[in-house]
């Protein structure tokens, strides 16, 4: 793991040719994503450069408080980002904050407790970033689906409430589907990993000159940790968020109320 590669700014700039290609395809096919592609490119450059310097400082300072601070910032940004994908879910921010924080803390806590990684900045920062990022995506997808399901199934949910079911009982089939859709992408990509695509960590390690065995082992650890974290995040986000659709008297709230 001591090997490393050095890339020049020119090499990064050259890779922008692919961004131009993506924008050209979007323009040609009228996908109307050119602006989003531009924003994504600039944001990724600024954010990754900033986080690169932040990580450098945190590695040098070698104190866990800074690590926890950085992870907390990731949780907050992740929750806000996921909320923008869950517009139909009232009060989605708190469920997302709790979901991402719990997923991050539990997953990192377990891998450290099981002796998989040392509790140092070098491991916790990148692994925490991946865990929180994947938890964010999963809970955003889950809550997006939950919002659609609850909006489309108001009649069914009210008919079930009308039988004397609790909000939890009436929402259960839709919460279940939402959780499933949040987790399914990672489960499917984990099934096909190595066959259809090479995951990022493994590619990065191979490019950096690590042995294939080390690259595979690290990738497997991360994939398994991510499976746990998306399950925790999806479960908590959906289990907390569905409640916001109901009043304390087990009534379905009016949309926008």
């Amino acid at each position: 793991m001591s090997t490393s590669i050095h890339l020049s700014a020119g090499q990064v700039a050259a890779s922008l040719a692919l961004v131009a290609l993506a924008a050209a395809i979007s323009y040609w096919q009228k996908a109307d994503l050119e602006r989003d592609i531009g924003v994504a490119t600039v944001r990724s450059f600024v954010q990754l450069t900033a986080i690169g310097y932040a990580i450098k400082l945190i590695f040098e300072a070698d104190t866990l408080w800074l690590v926890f601070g950085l992870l907390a910032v990731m949780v907050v940004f992740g929750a806000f980002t996921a909320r923008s994908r869950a517009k139909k879910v009232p009060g989605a921010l708190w469920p997302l904050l709790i979901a991402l924080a719990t997923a991050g803390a539990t997953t990192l806590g377990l891998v450290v407790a099981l002796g998989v990684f040392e509790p140092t900045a070098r491991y916790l920062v990148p692994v925490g970033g991946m865990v929180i990022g994947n938890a964010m995506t999963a809970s955003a997808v889950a809550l997006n689906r939950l919002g659609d399901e609850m909006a489309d199934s108001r009649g069914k949910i009210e008919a079930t409430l009308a039988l004397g079911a609790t909000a939890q009982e009436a929402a259960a089939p839709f919460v279940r589907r939402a959780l499933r859709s949040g987790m399914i992408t990672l489960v499917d990509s984990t099934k096909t990993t190595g066959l259809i695509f090479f995951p990022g960590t493994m590619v990065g390690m191979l490019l950096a000159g690590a042995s294939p065995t080390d690259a595979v082992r690290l990738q497997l650890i991360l994939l398994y940790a991510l499976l746990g974290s998306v399950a925790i995040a999806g479960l908590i986000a959906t289990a907390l968020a569905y409640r916001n659709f109901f009043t304390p008297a087990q009534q379905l709230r009016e949309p926008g109320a």
Partner: protein
Amino acid sequence: MLFDLSDVSLVRGDRRVLDSVSAAIPAGATAIVGPSGAGKSTLLRLLNRLADPDRGKISYRARPLDEYEPMALRREVSLVPQQPALLEGTVESNLRYAADLAGRELDGAHCLGLAGLEPGFADRDVAKLSVGEQQRAMLARALAQEPAVLLLDEPTSALDHAARDAIEATLAKLRRELEISVVLVSHDPEQARRLGDWVVRLQDGRAIESGPVAELMI
């Protein structure tokens, strides 16, 4: 009185759906009639606390509605919505779900019979039923809870004449065979006359009259 409504108002957005409604609903069969948009379905939803009024009081058997535990109230005062909304699965699984919620032993064939369905419907997938059959399955599902009051929201609105007559015959039979009160929403005054003993007439969210069908409906 079964239900007593006093000065009940409900606003949705900038629309006053119910405007100072005061009315009494006795035991037996009551029809809530009025044109579309009069607030009939909303009023029905208030009676088993699927919604609460913004203002005013509703009591059920002389006790304020908000003193009842909502889930227990809904098992006793069962609402069958206008649009069939069965859970995925068979008719039987829907009936069992409802019976379990109410803590009742399920006699599926009996409930299906009351709703005018053959026992063979128990194993049918609800997705493969006609709208009329779904309406009946919804009724059977409500009956599986052995409620004291049935709230029916336009139970025949989606049906042709033959199916409507069959449901009306079923409701008349239910009244004869069970000690059950029915509050029925209908936009059809003829149906109110055929099925109701008592009528509450709504217009633009206001109760403009209520009383025995024989006196109010010409």
